């Protein structure tokens, strides 16, 4: 009887999960398919299978939009920002979550505050700040800004995870005579790895797409990031739908690759967390 009750239930679970996977992926498949169709075909039927798939748009987007350079710049800026932002946040979140020192609450709120403001609000002051530091048209300026913008989110999420770790862990280590840095590096950090992987991913993606600050802060072609280059490319070829889709696929593809690598990390972190 139990088996009889369970089997349909399990089928329903499979159906639900795999059915939703189709819903989640289908629109993206449309994007890829359209990049393989000529514009005339897209105009007459915006959705459909490519009659004779062609990679012409990709070749064209790659050369016309000098994607190679943009790609490298995006990689430098985004990776630099995410690494720096996550590193400083992982440090800062630890004492904030594990100790109730004077001002810890206020400091927590201070970090939290950065989450609540639309990034667009800072446009004018950030421009003047960068200008006064000589960081206009500089990838370093953009990297620092992006790194800082990830701090509130990272501190918030990582604090929650540090807090969820049982208190006996570090007490035991402390009794063994371990210093704060050793407790942090050898006990705490490995345990929050799954959260670190998630946090990295969720910082990386919006920064990869961010286009407003590159527009305002960057000037020379050879420093453009992908979104800045794409906005140029899109404006120039507004009617060439095929090329636009190809550009979008090219801009998103690196994220898929990184994501596949990141999930590996997340899963590894998850299983490690479970065995403990």
């Amino acid at each position, binding site marked *: 009887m139990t088996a009889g009750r369970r089997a349909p239930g399990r089928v329903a679970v499979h159906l639900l999960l795999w059915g939703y996977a189709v819903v*989640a992926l289908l629109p993206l498949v449309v994007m890829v398919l359209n990049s393989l169709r000529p514009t005339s075909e897209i105009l007459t039927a915006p959705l459909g299978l490519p009659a004779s798939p062609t990679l012409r748009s990709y070749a064209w987007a790659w050369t016309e939009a000098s994607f190679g350079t943009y790609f490298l710049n995006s990689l430098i800026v985004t990776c630099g920002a995410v690494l720096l932002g996550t590193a400083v946040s992982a440090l800062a979140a630890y004492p904030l979550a594990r100790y109730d020192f004077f001002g810890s609450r206020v400091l927590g709120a201070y970090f939290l505050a950065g989450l609540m403001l639309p990034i667009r609000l800072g446009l004018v002051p950030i421009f003047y700040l960068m200008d006064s530091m000589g960081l206009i048209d500089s990838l370093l300026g953009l990297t620092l800004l992006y790194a800082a913008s990830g701090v509130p989110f990272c501190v918030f999420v990582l604090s929650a995870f540090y807090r969820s770790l049982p208190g006996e862990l570090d007490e035991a280590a402390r009794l063994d005579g371990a210093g704060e840095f050793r407790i942090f590096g050898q006990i705490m950090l490995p345990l929050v790895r799954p959260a670190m992987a998630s946090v990295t991913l969720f910082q990386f*993606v919006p920064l990869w797409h961010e286009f407003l600050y590159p527009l305002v802060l960057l000037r020379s072609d050879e420093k453009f990031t992908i979104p800045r280059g794409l906005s140029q490319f899109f404006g120039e070829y507004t009617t060439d739908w095929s090329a636009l889709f190809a550009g979008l696929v090219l801009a998103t593809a690196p994220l898929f690759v990184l994501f596949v690598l990141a999930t590996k990390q997340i899963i590894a*972190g998850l299983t490690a967390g479970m065995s403990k």
Partner: protein
Amino acid sequence: MPRWRVLAVFLLPALLLYSVFIVYPLVTALDYSFFEWRGIRQAGFAGLGNYRDLFSVYPYDQQLWQAFAHNALFFAGTMLIQNTAGLLFALLLFRYGRGKRFLQAAFTTPYLVDPLVVGYLWSLLLNPTFGPVNALLEAAGLDSWALPWLGDTRTALPVVIGVNAWQWVGFPMLLFSAALAGIPAEYHEAARVDGASAWQAFRRVTLPLLTPAIGVVSVLTFIGNFNAFGLVYAMAGSTGSPAHSTDVLGLLFYRVAFQEGGVEAIGRSSALAVLMFVFIFGVSLLATSYFRRRERMLV
């Protein structure tokens, strides 16, 4: 308790980076709200004049409340659809066998695409004349369901909430998965030995242990929804089409600050941002301390 010098090593790098590049410019922007502006030139001190304008100048006085209400609906809808689905997926996948990793990745992929592109793609899919969604509905004999989704004041906001959930559901799913993985296996086993049903085990053991994750997800959803911009802009334009039925505070801010381009834009838009900040920050603090108290009760 570590020594102050040790604390400083932990805290200072983040504090410095964040204070210089985020807090300082944003505090400056808040300061802007108390001045009169002539383009990018600061004119005289305005006191609370810009704030008064937001509540008294037509049509901002009406759009402000309308947009606020839509943000509240956006939040409620997202909690209900996106976060519930995220939790459900995390639970179903927790002990799922082969294909688990693929499914997790599939549910999260929409998040990898730029919200502006997501909005554009779904506008195509939902297009009333050639979109496949309506074609499918009609093929299934549900003609009366084939609505001009984004062109109807009644359906536009729910559709935007749904697409937003589609894009973001991987976020709560991953956080809940990580939290589930962090629950020691003994707890689950203890519940099973007690002979509790799956639902009882979930209610009595799993759910309370998920409180910190639920807190994080709720607060981040709240903040994200009250700052919503990209997707709504892509699906409903800067005015929250049709007829402001999808207008949210982020769009109102964009219009006042950037689009309508009056000489007084900087002052008024900064005032609006301050109001949004005070509200979002206040509620988030209350919510965080509430969840913190719930956590303590568990221990």
